[in-house]
C-alpha cells in the first residue's frame, strides 16, 4: 500500500486569547495624533471592552495553530457524498477580490453598477443555457432557499390560476430539505417510495397524482446517485393533472453539458453554485442557490430582475405576478463572481468534461470497493455511490466506526447514514478534481479499514486515534449539551 497522508504530526495545543493576554502587551503602534485630545462626553463612554492584550507573534501563532486543526479540500480528499466538495480554483478568489467587484455597493444605483449587473445578467444567461430553461434568478442564498423560492413560485402560479392545491409528492430518494420547503408553502408532502432498483416508477406517481396535488419534487440524479430514467414519463403524468415538476438540481455536477433538465419535463430547478460551480462551502457559507424556470413560471420569478436594454443593464421591479422578494438586494454577489469565473475558465467543453470525470471517478470507487463494502444498489452510478456496513455487521463494526477511522488515514469521511433509504449508508462522492492516485489512496484506506474490522474491531471502535481529539462522546453532548462557553 502507498504511504497514506494521515499522520500524528506536530499539532499544537492553543489556549484562548484571553488566557494568553498580559497587561501592556500590544501588537500595533498608532500613528502620532495630529489633533488635540478632546475627552468624550461621559454619557457616551462606558467600561472598556475586555479585549486581550497580545503581541503580534502571539496573534500569528494563535491563528496559525487553529488553522492547523482544520481540514479542507485544500488539505486533502473530501469525499462527502451529496456535497460536491470539489477543488475551488484560486483564480475564482482573485476575480472576486478585484476592487471593482469587492467594493461594489448595492446602494450605488444601476448607473454606477453596470459591470456588476452585466456579470449577473451574463451568469443568468449561462445558467439558463446549461440547464435548458428560459430565465434564472440568482437571488436565493443557498440550495434550500432556492427550493423555497421555487416552491413559492409554484404556489403563486396556482394562486394566479384561481385554485390553490394542497399536496406535493416527494420520493424517498429526494433531498431531506424538500419536504421542509414544501411545508413552508403550506403543502402537505406525500412521501412516495422508489422502486426496487432505487429508481422512481411512473406507475407509483400515476396512482397518486390528482388535481389537488401541486406536483412533484424530485432530485435527479437522486440521492442514491442514480439517474431517474423515467423522468419524462413522470413529468407527463404530473402535467396531465395540471401539476408542476420541481427539480432539485443539487446533483447537477453529474450531468452538466450532458442533460438539460429543462428539456426533460422539469418546470423549475435550483442549482447550488457552491457545489457544482466551485465556490467555497463547508464553512457555513455564504452559498448561492439560483433558480431556473421555464415559460410557465417565468412571470413569478422574484424581483428585482436584471433587464438588458441596448447595452445597459437595470434592476426592474415591475412584474405584477412576481412571488416578491426573496433576499435583500440581489443575493450573494461575491459567490456569483466566483461561479462566473469558473464557468468562463472551464468553457462548455470543460464543464462537460468535469461531469464526465465526476461520474467516472464515482464509478471507479464503486467498482473498486464493491467487494469490500456492501453495495445495496449495484447499478452504474452518477457522481456518487452509496455503500453500507452490512459486511461488517458480523464484527459489530458500524459505518460510523469506519468513517471515524478514515480520519486517521488523512481523509475526510464520506457522508454517513444518508440517504435514509439505505440502512447505515456510506456515501462517497470523489468529485472530478481528485487524481487517480488520490482516489487509489482512499480506496486502499477503506480496504485497510475493512481488514481491521475483521482483525482488530476494538481499534476501530476507539477511532480516530491520531487526531488532536479522539472519539467524542456524542451521547453526553446530546443529553447534556453545554450551550455556553
Amino acid at each position: 500500500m502507498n504511504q497514506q497522508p494521515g499522520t500524528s504530526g506536530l499539532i499544537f495545543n492553543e489556549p484562548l486569547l484571553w488566557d494568553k493576554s498580559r497587561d501592556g502587551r500590544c501588537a500595533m503602534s498608532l500613528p502620532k495624533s495630529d489633533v488635540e485630545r478632546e475627552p468624550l462626553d461621559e454619557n457616551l463612554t462606558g467600561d472598556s471592552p475586555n479585549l486581550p492584550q497580545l503581541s503580534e507573534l502571539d496573534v500569528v501563532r494563535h491563528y496559525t495553530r487553529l488553522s492547523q486543526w482544520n481540514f479542507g479540500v485544500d488539505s486533502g480528499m473530501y469525499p462527502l457524498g451529496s456535497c460536491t466538495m470539489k477543488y475551488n480554483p484560486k483564480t475564482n478568489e482573485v476575480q472576486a477580490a478585484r476592487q471593482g467587484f469587492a467594493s461594489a455597493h448595492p446602494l450605488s444605483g444601476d448607473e454606477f453598477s453596470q459591470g456588476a449587473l452585466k456579470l449577473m445578467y451574463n451568469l443568468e444567461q449561462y445558467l439558463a443555457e446549461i440547464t435548458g430553461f428560459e430565465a434564472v434568478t440568482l437571488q436565493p442564498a443557498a440550495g434550500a432557499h432556492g427550493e423555497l423560492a421555487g416552491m413559492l413560485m409554484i404556489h403563486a402560479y396556482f394562486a394566479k390560476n384561481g385554485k390553490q392545491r394542497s399536496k406535493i409528492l416527494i420520493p424517498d430518494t429526494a433531498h431531506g430539505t424538500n419536504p421542509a420547503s414544501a411545508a413552508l408553502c403550506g403543502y402537505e408532502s406525500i412521501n412516495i417510495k422508489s422502486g426496487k432498483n432505487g429508481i422512481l416508477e411512473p406507475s407509483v406517481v400515476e396512482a397518486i397524482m390528482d388535481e389537488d396535488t401541486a406536483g412533484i419534487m424530485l432530485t435527479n440524479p437522486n440521492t442514491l446517485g442514480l439517474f431517474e430514467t423515467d423522468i419524462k414519463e413522470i413529468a407527463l403524468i404530473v402535467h396531465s393533472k395540471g401539476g408542476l415538476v420541481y427539480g432539485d438540481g443539487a446533483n447537477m455536477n453529474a450531468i452538466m453539458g450532458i442533460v438539460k433538465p429543462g428539456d426533460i419535463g422539469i418546470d423549475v430547478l435550483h442549482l447550488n453554485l457552491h457545489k457544482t460551480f466551485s465556490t467555497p462551502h463547508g464553512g457555513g457559507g455564504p452559498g448561492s442557490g439560483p433558480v431556473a424556470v421555464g415559460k410557465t413560471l417565468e412571470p413569478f420569478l422574484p424581483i428585482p430582475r436584471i433587464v438588458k436594454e441596448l447595452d445597459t443593464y437595470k434592476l426592474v421591479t415591475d412584474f405584477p405576478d412576481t412571488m416578491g422578494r426573496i433576499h435583500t438586494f440581489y443575493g450573494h454577489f461575491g459567490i456569483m463572481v466566483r461561479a462566473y469565473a469558473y464557468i468562463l475558465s472551464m468553457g462548455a467543453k470543460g464543464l462537460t468534461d468535469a461531469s464526465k470525470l465526476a461520474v467516472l471517478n464515482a464509478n471507479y470507487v464503486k467498482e473498486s470497493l464493491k467487494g469490500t463494502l456492501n453495495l445495496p444498489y449495484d447499478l452504474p452510478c452518477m457522481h456518487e455511490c452509496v455503500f453500507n456496513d452490512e459486511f461488517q455487521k458480523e464484527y459489530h463494526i458500524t459505518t460510523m466506526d469506519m468513517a471515524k477511522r478514515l480520519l486517521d488515514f488523512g481523509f475526510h469521511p464520506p457522508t454517513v447514514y444518508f440517504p435514509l433509504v439505505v440502512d447505515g449508508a456510506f456515501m462517497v462522492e470523489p468529485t472530478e478534481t481528485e487524481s487517480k492516485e488520490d482516489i487509489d489512496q482512499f480506496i486502499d484506506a477503506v480496504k485497510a479499514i475493512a481488514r481491521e474490522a475483521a482483525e482488530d474491531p476494538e481499534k476501530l471502535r476507539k477511532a480516530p486515534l491520531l487526531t488532536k481529539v479522539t472519539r467524542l462522546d456524542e451521547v453526553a453532548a446530546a443529553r447534556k449539551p453545554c450551550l455556553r462557553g
Partner: protein
Amino acid sequence: MKEINDLILPDDVKYTKSHEWAKISGDIVTIGLNDYAQDQLGEIVFVELPEAGDTFSKGDEFGSVESVKAVSEIYIPISGEIVEINEDLEDAPELVNESCYDNGWLIKVKPEDVSELNDLMDKDEYLDMLKG
C-alpha cells in the same frame, strides 16, 4: 448490537411490527419500546411524548425517540386516551435503553376497545417476524 437470541422479550407483553410493546393491567395499557428497538436505535438522547388527555387511533404516530443515529417515530398499538406519560424520560432518556420494559415505559393509555390488543403479536410470533 445484540443477536436475535440475546434479545430480552418478556412473555407477558404484546408486540407490534414497529417494535413497541403493550401490556394491560386493569383497564390501563402501558406502552413502551422493546429491547430490539432500543438496541437498534442505540443510545437514546431525547424522547418526545404527547400530553395526558390527547387521544389517538391505533397506528397513529404519538411521539418520537432520538438517538445519536436517528430520529424514529413511535406508533400507538391501541386506540384511546393518554392518561399518563413517563415524565422521568425528560431528564433521563437513557431509561429507555437501560430498562425498556420497566422504568423506561413511555405512555399509559385508557383504551377504547381492549380487543384491539388481540391483533398484536405474542413473543413467538414477534421472534418469527424478526427472523423473517
